[in-house]
């Protein structure tokens, strides 16, 4: 099936992850555990939907982050991200 036209990358996880983090996560730089490339979380490729989200590396396709929503809660699996870096003032 073809689903609705909507945000199809890490920008879509800002809302769900606002329950988890006190800051906006889409500007956070994620380091891929497989290829080492760095990308703002907002630019990662999104698979699944907002109930079960999979964010993959733009370069190599490795799964960097998985987020599962349940009953108003959220669970985050970040084993595919070696590092997550937040620069408060960069990325204007």
């Amino acid at each position, binding site marked *: 099936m073809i689903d609705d*036209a909507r945000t199809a990358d890490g920008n879509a996880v800002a809302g769900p992850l606002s329950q988890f983090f006190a800051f*906006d996560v889409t500007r956070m730089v994620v380091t891929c555990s497989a290829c080492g490339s760095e990308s703002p979380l907002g630019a990662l490729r999104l698979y699944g939907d907002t109930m079960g989200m999979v964010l993959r590396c733009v370069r190599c396709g490795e799964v960097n982050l998985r987020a599962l929503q349940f009953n108003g809660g959220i669970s985050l699996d970040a084993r595919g991200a070696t590092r997550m870096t937040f620069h408060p003032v960069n990325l204007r």
Partner: protein
Amino acid sequence: MGIPGASSVIPAMPEASAPILGWQLATLTAIRDETPSVKTLAFSLPQWAGHVAGQHIDLRLTSDDGYQAERSYSIASPSGHIPLVEITVERIADGEVSPFLTEQLSLGDTIELRGPVGGYFTWSADNPAPLMLLAGGSGIVPLMSMLRTRARAANRPPARLLYSSRNFEEIVYRGELEGLVATQDGLSVAHTLTRGAPANWNGETRRVDPEMLAKYAFPATQAPQNFICGPTAFVETVADRLVALGHPEAVIKTERFGPTGERR
């Protein structure tokens, strides 16, 4: 922003990091046809922390049996604190949410909304860098918020939009874009149609290629801020070509927007 009495030494939080509200009930207050398959919906809200151009809202639908569907949509309206936000929705026949939003939701109906969210794909008018916007199809929506925000700003950096649509009828905001260009405030708009053009068409008629970028995009020497929004293939192709033209990756922001899933 700022807290009365707080020391001015403390750096102000960027607006995009304003506290995120939980779910609230938004009321549909206006519907506007943009193209045969695209509508703009305006929602009024009990509370609104204000948003920056490029940010999103999430909509949540709950069916009678408790099943919930959530969707993230770019805000189309200009940045500001007025508790009224517009989104522009393309109706996808097989979609789970878009047929409901575009055909069933009526004026006065309420829907759960959360936002604004997202601080990566955002632009505010105090950024003096030349503004380069590259849109593929319905990816125009957050870029239109940026252009509407720019049109209301005191200082407007030069701006260019290169907008790829399948055909003339599918160009969203066509008349409004013409109006913005007519003000002659430093904005130029170029269209390209990839699946056929009217007989008297004087725009481009092919997919965005390096030659087209060389013609319409700001050169890297002018240090523009580039925003690309559209289907994944469009976004990745255009981003790679801007890098090849010498633009640093840090000044290329991307948002993939379009139908998801596979054709079966």
